[in-house]
């Protein structure tokens, strides 16, 4: 499972184990699965799709501005604003 964290300046929005997360990067969308190579990208305004398990319908979280980092600890998305 992939450890996914979504953080805004105001609070820690999500910290959970998920199957896959699709992030709207500035240079195009990218999906992150467990064991992804270290990677860093800026994020454009759009929605992050969180797949709880393989084949499940994704949960969408709208974010504004920020960046995503994939490291050994999983995926961390730092967003300026999160809707909902």
């Amino acid at each position: 499972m992939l450890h996914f964290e979504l953080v805004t300046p105001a609070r820690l929005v999500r910290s959970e184990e998920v199957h896959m997360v699709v992030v709207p990067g500035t240079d195009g969308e990218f999906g992150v699965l467990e064991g992804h190579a270290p990677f860093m990208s800026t994020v454009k305004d759009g929605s992050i799709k969180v797949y709880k398990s393989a084949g499940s319908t994704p949960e969408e979280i709208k974010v504004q501005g920020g960046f995503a980092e994939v490291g050994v600890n999983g995926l961390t998305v730092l967003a300026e604003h999160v809707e909902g």
Partner: protein
Amino acid sequence: MASLKELKGRINSVKSTQKITKAKQMVAAAKLRKAQAAAEAARPYASRLAEVMGSLASKVAGQDNGPLLMRGTGSDKRHLLVVVNTDKGLCGGLNSNIVKEAKLQARALEAAGKTVTFYLVGKKGRAPIKRDYPNAIAENFDTSTVRTPGFDEASAIAREVIAMFEAGKFDVAHLIAPVFKSALAQDPVTTQLIPVPAPAATSEAGAVVEYEPSEEEILEELLPRYVTTKVFGALLEREASEQGASMTAMDNATRNAGDLIQKLTIQYNRSRQAAITTELIEIIAGAEAL
């Protein structure tokens, strides 16, 4: 000697003051809890951001063509002090301590031959700093229009400061803001804001990180955000400090009012008894004379 009526009036007026300070103390205590929770909730973002900055900065460090916000203008003649004060009073010595720290820094910089300008956040710093530096105040930022200053205010402040930097109005910026330690201690602390101090490089062993877009572009985007986060942190600390200081100050005020009421009550009772005694003596003396 004050008359009985006057004493009664004073006691009542101190009592109503005590009611106000007591209420303010309880309000501050409730708000403090909220402010502290907010300050804590903001920590993960700040620490993550610092981590990312660390790993990026170590890659870009040493290059001459790094982003302007990181390498600075190359001079350190003109300094900007971003001073974060509260908007409301009734919080003890908090604001005067912040102003004192700001003036201390300003004097030290001026003694070293630099020029100093101020960027003031919050209402309470304006008057005392204006008294000493009437021409050095570049900008006032008003945070009193919103109930709790949040990230929007922080990014507005950061945007303005960065715009001033890019327009070449100053070389180095420092942030002077209170740091909340406990309800009793909130010390003003000065930290460098611009150029962004290179964080301690975190050495991630082995892993080659891919960047999209390039390192420089990400860093370029990251630095303003880092400044914003710093300002946001300062605003949250200010909020917690204000409530903490207010709680302590109001607690003292309530206790002082209690002491004063006690003293006045004793005085009141004494003069009442004295009046009764005099009256009795008069009556007895009158009876004896018959």
